């Protein structure tokens, strides 16, 4: 029953699978144009909602596939990795991440793709990320209590938190995503109309 344990596929199993998944991941990111900070940052100026569309489509696609597979009994949910919930550090980190994303123009994955297509800003961003991680290691000690304990709920899924069944949470997520797509496209059209209305010298 899935998930399979690639670590048992010989010594080369896990590396090969991981590299292969990484290749597909990087390929699709680049295809979407996410190797370009201009395209990524456009999300935050409302004219191009691609980041929203790609991210949430990916999430609901994977979610539906996962939960249908689990529903049929072909995959053991209990053996799937669920990121533990740390509300304090998660939200704080997310806000800072968002700022860094806007300032730098990338997230780690897309910066790697940018760097791979020989873009200097991607390279500088990745170097920055490495530096930031290094600094974190040496500066986190005084914040350790916050980092480890603030809002630490362990494994907490949306359906456990909302006390609903898993498919109900899936349906809510899907509906929310569809709503965001519709809303996002409306915003895109509005921005387009506004830009078209500008008188250009």
């Amino acid at each position, binding site marked *: 029953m899935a*998930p*399979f*344990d690639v670590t048992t596929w010989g010594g080369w199993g*896990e590396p090969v699978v*991981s*590299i292969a*998944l990484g290749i*597909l991941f*990087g390929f*699709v990111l*680049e295809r979407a144009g996410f*190797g370009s900070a*201009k*395209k990524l940052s456009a*999300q935050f100026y409302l004219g191009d909602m*691609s980041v929203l569309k790609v*991210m949430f*489509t*990916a*999430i609901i*696609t*994977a*979610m539906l596939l*996962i939960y249908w597979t689990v529903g049929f009994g072909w*995959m053991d949910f209990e053996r*799937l*990795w*669920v*990121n*533990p*919930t740390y509300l304090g*550090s*998660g939200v*704080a980190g*997310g*806000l800072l*991440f*968002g700022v860094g*994303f806007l*300032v730098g123009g990338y997230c*780690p994955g897309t910066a*790697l*793709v940018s760097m*791979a*297509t*020989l*873009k*200097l*800003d991607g390279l*500088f961003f990745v170097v*920055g*990320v*490495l530096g930031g991680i290094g*600094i*974190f290691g*040496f500066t986190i000690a005084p914040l350790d209590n916050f980092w480890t304990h603030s809002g630490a709920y362990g494994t907490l*899924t949306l*359906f456990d*938190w909302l006390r609903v069944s*898993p498919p109900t949470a899936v349906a809510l997520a899907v509906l929310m995503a569809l709503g965001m797509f519709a809303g996002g496209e409306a915003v895109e059209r509005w921005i387009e109309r506004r830009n078209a209305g500008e008188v250009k010298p």
Partner: protein
Amino acid sequence: MKQNEDRFWNPYLCGVLLGGVLYLSFLVTGHGLGASGGLARGVTAALKTVAPGAVNSTAFFAGLGGGDKAVLSHWLVWEVLGVLVGGAISGLLAGRFGLGTHRGPRLSVRKRLLFALLGGMLVGWSTQLSRGCTSGQALSGGAILSAGSWAFMFAVFGGGYLVAYPFRKLWR
């Protein structure tokens, strides 16, 4: 710098494909994708060669690669290498491969690179605080319905929109 922007694939299509890759990852390995974790291991490995004492005595690095631990022998590291390859292949095929710098119309190359570095540092620091980035937390954690991951995801969008207007000279 050729960008062939008209050759970007439809974002929804990319989303479905990405979701498929994400699902494949869960199916075959039990976990999702990631990026920042691989980079964190890279940093730890580098530190280990120049200052092993610092790695062993600093809890964060020690956890990743202290003592006998094989820091780089981890799926995240291999996956990051794969991302580089996949990105390069796609760029090559689409004619988007080549030296250049993506930047807003009002920003010089030098300023862009500086902000890329600074933004990267902030992102790097915060990914460790939040225990993941948009790949590991938002995409993977989001798909599996982890509450913390969804909170992180909304915080990311919030943070970005919050500073978009003040920093508009970077991109407009």
